[in-house]
């Protein structure tokens, strides 16, 4: 009996193991035909949420490639921060079916999520202005105004001596 357990247990564990590690966005796009209609795990940063009734599109960015994930609206509502200039969006992991040209969504490349998890919350980024740059911009603006007025004065003085257009 014990040899059966030794043989079967690892096999059972293998079958119960979660899917292979997440596919990258790049791999999914470049080999879209190979992944078509297959179950995939995909993870990345949320950069957009578009709610459509009971469902929603969550656009997830992974290393420069963004893919639309179709999931239930209540799943999408778990997303608290959407990535933009001042924020890193929530990191999510999606397990679902990949479509290279989804028949339900007019041929879009998408993932229909079976499982949608917010893995890590997003955060705000520090984008405070640099004092050096502020100082430099003030200096440049002052210089531009000074140059404009100086040249205008020179031109007006020249016109008093030799009127334009006879210069």
């Amino acid at each position: 009996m014990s040899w059966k357990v030794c043989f079967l247990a690892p096999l059972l564990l293998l079958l119960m193991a979660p899917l292979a590690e997440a596919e990258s966005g790049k791999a999914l796009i470049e080999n879209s035909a190979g992944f078509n209609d297959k179950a995939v795990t995909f993870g990345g940063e949320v950069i957009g949420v578009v709610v459509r009734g009971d469902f929603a599109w969550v656009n997830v960015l992974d290393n420069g490639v963004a893919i639309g994930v179709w999931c239930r609206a209540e799943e999408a509502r778990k997303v608290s921060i959407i990535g933009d200039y001042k924020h890193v969006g929530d990191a999510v992991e999606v397990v679902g079916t990949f479509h290279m040209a989804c028949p339900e969504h007019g041929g879009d490349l998408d993932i229909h999520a079976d499982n949608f998890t917010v893995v890590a919350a997003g955060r705000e980024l520090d984008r405070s202005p640099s004092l050096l740059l502020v100082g430099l911009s003030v200096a440049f603006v002052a210089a531009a105004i000074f140059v404009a007025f100086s040249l205008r004065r020179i031109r007006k003085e020249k016109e008093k001596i030799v009127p334009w257009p006879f210069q």
Partner: protein
Amino acid sequence: MKVIGFNLCKFGNIIGALLLVPIIVAVFYKEFDIIPHFLIASSATFILCNVGIHFLRTTKEMELKHALCFAALTWIFCMLLAAIPFWSTGSTGSYLDANFDAMSGFTTTGLSLVRDIDHLPYSINFYRHFLQFVGGVGIIVFSLTILARSEMSSVLAFKGEARELGIRPSIVRTSRIILGIAITFMVLGAVLFTAVGISEGAGVGTSIFDGVNYSMAAYSTGGFAPHSQNMLFYHSTPYEVVALAIFLIGSFNFTFHYAVLGGKRREIFKNIEIRTMFITLTLSTLVISGLLLFSNVYSSSAMLFRKAFFQAASAHTTTGFGTVHPAQIPSLWGSAVMFIMSLIMVLGACANSTGGGIKAIRVGVIAKSFFREIKKALMPKTAWVTEKFHHIETTPLTDTIARGAMLIAVGYIFLFAVGTTVTVLHGYNTSDSMYETASAVGNVGLSSGITSPAMPALLKVTYIFLMWAGRLEIMAVLALMGFAILGLRRGIKK
């Protein structure tokens, strides 16, 4: 040289003023760290241009040869100035990449080397689309007032003027009308995009920001988008339909707009460009859809409309909006479809529009010339064969017009051949190279994946040149080269 330099510096002040516009967006989105970048770029431009105006001041008026060189140099000058905010904010990796995006913006191409569009500052993102709108309006002004005066161009001049004006007065007068029409359609597009965006489930703020930007890019047939997914961000047919309407309108000839908006609605059915584009777009849609359907890439009419037709229309109008990931084009669509897409990209939109390419009027004129020659061959030698075409008014198809059209077409094909060769020599395959080159020369913006920050520097410079030369319909570039060679000769003789 002095008259060109003086006018360049005067024009540069306009760029200096335009660099201040994104500050409004930066203030609204509280991007106070970005404002100094625009202030520095704008101030530096004003300083440079005002000093230039002071030392190059002249009363001499521009002749056509000066105007052509001025137009060619303006694009380079504007590119160098407009690139500053992209580079200083770190939106692009290098100053060369920044110049690439600035040229792509002004020439309404749409190819981009910006890093991480989805995390760009809102003000920089707005700036990209604003450059395309300004560039689109600018090219119409240029082609109507300068290019149309050259016999070779065969692009018929704007007949809205009661009398033949000098170049500068007609630029000012015509610009106002062009800007009025552009703003009308841009506002219409922004309202429609915003309304559809909100109804499709995007937030109000996102919809408004995206609506304004997509509208500027659509009317100018530019192709920049505020998201890396381009049109796919919304996954929405109504959104794509609005985009189609606006960029198709943007691809029409300005003189056509002027006629139709002035009451001449029959022009819609009689105009040679509208007819030519209708035929070529319909044929290309048929072929592309057929290939994609029968190779089982797409299976329904909805898919074919949203993917095949949208991409074909985007390519033909030289817009560059995408509903398919660029990397899927070579792997999924295949080289046959890519070849047809390359062809229609080079054919291009209507003349005197924001679009690029050879232009529909030349394609129509060349086609009619062929038919005329065939007729001549079939008729007795003593027969007098004439052909005419309708563009606002009916015009006889003369040998001069036909020759001009063919010369420009040959020029484009030459640029296309050079660009493809250079790309292939960098190790890319022929199909992808042709697609990418057609996109650059025709100022389209669709990519097979070649355009990226990792692209070799020489290829970036090549594509900047192709976008520039394609935008100016080669002629102004040749005029500039002629000027430079003459100048060199005089210098050597002295």
